[in-house]
């Protein structure tokens, strides 16, 4: 059976033109999907032999797992809910409700990827646009600190570089592509211009470009340490100030290197300065399929996009205080619920070690270091394959997920809803 117009929820591109072939109880083909998307459909569309719930690695019923997990979280003094970047908005809403009832902290993968972009947005504002506008209007594309050829393989072909647009009828020929990074990545092959800057010098280059856009002359000696020549810098600034519609795609090369939110503030301020000359915008290159969704869900429910604390009964936001790495490294969180993420593999050592020490509840579609370390692990179905739902594309456009096949596992939303009911009962609220 072939199902058309299926949405791939693996990365922030959220491509919605995939044709999936289902044979029996598995997915055998995913036409139009990139290498990452194909792998996602085929691996998640294969039957799993994992039990629906495990306590200390031993299979138990879903009811027993829910009961134990609810008790574990309700007894905690400073519980943490983390992850949520690869699940549906419907499940994310339940997680926010659970955090409120628990009086805990809720944080998402944003805090270790584009959280600094959110902080810059709050500080200086975000001049942005949709990927549709990029496709139809942009004639200057700049990837800064991102490697779309490997991280978002269809980004260039579907949205930013090769497609023909309303005001870019020649497609690739009508666009100039610039890649700025600290090393030559496979994305450089698709770029017209590759500028290699020294590691940790992004802020200085962005600051100098802003000075040029403001009509100032930056100090030439300071520029020498950035890895670019003064001519390269003025050439780039000139190109930026004389395009029709320019876009900067901001990657983690900016958000997770020294300077973090100041780096992204510098991009936002540069784009603001460029808008005095031409139309310019920026879009953060969001990684996971629905990491933009959890920002949106948290923001509409609590007012803040990540790192939210409910210990006083109302939401408070303070990156550095209520964010996952800080809470775990300082040894404050005493129980955790991880949904659709593998922080034990990805967080810094000290934080990951703390997470492995405390009572941990995990929800995931497959086995990972985190599920193996979890005291209670639930296996759930995949949103976008086994369940419907909503995800947000990297440009904050909501897209509805289609169900392709049935699953014997419950969805994240269902497990979280039952956990919420269990915790409410224990807390008598």
């Amino acid at each position, binding site marked *: 059976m072939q199902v058309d117009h299926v949405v791939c929820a693996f990365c922030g591109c959220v491509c919605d033109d995939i044709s999936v072939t289902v044979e029996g109880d598995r997915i055998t083909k995913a036409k139009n999907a990139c290498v990452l998307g194909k792998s996602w459909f085929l691996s998640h569309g294969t039957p799993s032999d994992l039990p629906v719930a495990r306590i200390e690695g031993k299979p138990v019923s879903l009811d027993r797992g829910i009961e134990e997990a609810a008790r574990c979280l309700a007894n905690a*003094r400073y519980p943490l809910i983390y992850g949520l970047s690869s699940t549906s908005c419907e499940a994310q809403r339940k997680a926010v409700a659970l955090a409120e009832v628990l009086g805990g902290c809720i944080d998402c993968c944003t805090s270790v990827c584009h959280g600094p972009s959110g902080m810059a947005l709050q*500080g200086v504002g975000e001049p942005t646009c949709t990927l549709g506008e990029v496709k139809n209007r942009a004639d200057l594309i700049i990837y800064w600190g991102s490697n779309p050829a490997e991280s978002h393989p269809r980004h260039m072909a579907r949205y930013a570089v090769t497609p023909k647009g309303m005001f870019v009828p020649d497609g690739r020929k009508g666009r100039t592509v610039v890649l700025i990074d600290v090393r030559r990545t496979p994305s450089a092959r698709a770029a017209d211009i590759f500028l290699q800057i020294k590691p940790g010098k992004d802020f*200085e280059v962005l600051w100098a470009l802003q*000075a040029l856009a403001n009509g100032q002359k930056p100090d030439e000696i300071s520029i020498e340490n950035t890895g670019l020549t003064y001519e390269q810098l003025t050439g780039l600034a000139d190109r930026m100030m004389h395009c029709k519609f320019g876009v900067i795609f901001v990657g983690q090369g900016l958000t997770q290197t020294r*300077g973090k939110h100041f780096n992204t503030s510098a991009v936002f301020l540069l784009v603001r300065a460029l808008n005095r000359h031409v139309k310019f915008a920026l879009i953060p290159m969001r990684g996971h399929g629905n990491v933009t969704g959890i920002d949106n869900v948290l923001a509409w429910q609590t007012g803040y996009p990540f790192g939210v604390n*409910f210990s006083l009964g109302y939401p408070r*936001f303070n990156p*550095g205080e209520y964010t996952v790495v800080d809470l775990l490294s300082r040894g404050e969180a005493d129980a955790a619920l991880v949904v659709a993420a593998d922080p034990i593999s990805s967080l810094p050592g000290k934080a990951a070690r703390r997470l492995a020490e405390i009572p941990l509840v995990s929800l995931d579609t497959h086995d990972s270091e985190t599920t193996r370390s979890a005291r209670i692990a639930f296996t759930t179905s995949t949103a976008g394959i086994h369940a419907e739902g909503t995800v947000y594309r990297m440009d904050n456009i909501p897209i509805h997920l289609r169900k392709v096949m049935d699953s014997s596992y419950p969805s994240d939303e269902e497990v979280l809803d039952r956990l919420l009911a269990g915790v409410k009962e224990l807390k008598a609220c």
Partner: protein
Amino acid sequence: MTVLTLKSQLQAPLEAGVIVPDRFAGNSVAAVAGMPVTYGNEAACLGDFFKVAGAGSTEIVLEGDLGRVKNIAAGMTRGKITVHGDAGMHLGSEMRGGVINVYGNVGDWAGSEMKGGKIHIHGNAGHGLGGAYRGSRRGMNRGMIIVEGNAGNEAGAVMRRGLIVVAGNAGDFAGAFMIAGTLMVFGKLGIRAGAGLLRGTLVTFNQPELLPTFCYDCSYSPSFLKLILRDLRLQGLSISEEYITGCYRRYSGDFNRLGKGEILVYDQR
């Protein structure tokens, strides 16, 4: 004088914004011990965690490792608080008057958005010293902070008025987006100091790596600096006579913004 002694090591953050002279003054020992705090996500009383000696007064002494006690002296307007040990986050945030002395290290956001008074930290300070909370337009606005050790990143960020003195080193983005005020660092400055400086003064005694949007003006001996340095001697800091009589190179910036700020670098020649 009220003396609070921590009974045992805390496992979770204790939000104790009630530890301010304004709240303590005129209260009995029992009333002080009954003041509300939040331990993790549970409501509790101050007396559950501290042994209280002496009726509530405007002079408070805290003893023990208070590294997990948040909001000590937040919003205080008068009196004196002395901490013998480490203090947690938000010490003296939004305070308007009075004096805080800490004989230990303090957590992040000490003196954030303070509007008066004095904080003297004898150990190290965390990030965001005298800075602003996310989304706020202004950081410290009047008052004085002295740190005898090192300070973390973003010391004096978006500061509006007042004086911050760091005897040790400061982290990255010291005085970033500062609106006005004075930040003095005797040790080394981290990278990108004064980024987005609107007005205000950064004083340093080691040549920092400057952003491309600062330019050299002149070398001179500013009178106001002599006054501040002599005053700091009275506060107990050891200030070399050469710093008082010496010359400073003035760099103005940040030209991506107003450009009326200055970075003064002690000229060792």
